[in-house]
């Protein structure tokens, strides 16, 4: 899933390991999320959003087909 984790983490001056420790996962999981190879659970998505003080939808873009629902 597309996301802004890398941008927000770097803006916060954090390493992947530091972010991982903050939200209680491994560095490998943060790496996988940033490379869009792993979609986090809702719980982890909430933790990340809370960590960056933003909404989940600001952090993750599920690339839904918005036009089809209109």
């Amino acid at each position, binding site marked *: 899933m597309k996301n802004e984790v890398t941008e927000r983490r770097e803006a916060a001056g954090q390493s992947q390991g530091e972010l991982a*420790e903050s939200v209680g*996962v*491994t560095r*490998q999981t943060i790496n996988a999320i940033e490379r869009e190879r*792993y979609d986090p659970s809702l*719980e982890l998505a909430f933790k990340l959003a809370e960590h960056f003080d933003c909404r989940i939808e600001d952090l993750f873009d599920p690339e839904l087909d918005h036009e089809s629902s209109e």
Partner: protein
Amino acid sequence: MFDSVRPTLDRLGGRKQAYERLVWGLTLVGCLGLFAGIVVDERLVGTVVYLVAVWIVMGVTFGYPYATDETILDERDTRLHNRASGLTIGIVAMATLSTVPALYVLDAGGYLTIGATLWGAIYAVSALAFLYGACYTIVSRRN
């Protein structure tokens, strides 16, 4: 107890990599010990080496998370494990369902004979299927 091994774990690089190195390294030692025991005809020694290594691996597997404050296994590991388990069961099921019934019918018709080894494998796979069914039932009732 785990406080005493924490410095050692940290020296190994700490965290997840040290955990994985320990688990896979000890597993390798156990398997090599067992194999060496067979080769040099010291099977009892080889078996002891294997069992000790496996027990240590089990201790490390369950004890390491308590020996470090850092997260060693998380939701991604669980998801990878679940996917790998599902894939394994799927492959075994496909292989079994596509061969065993036909073999059984051919054996009953006298076209071929299922040997003792193959029967053992069939029983083992059947036991695995029952175990999977039982685990699935338990898990589905809890979720």
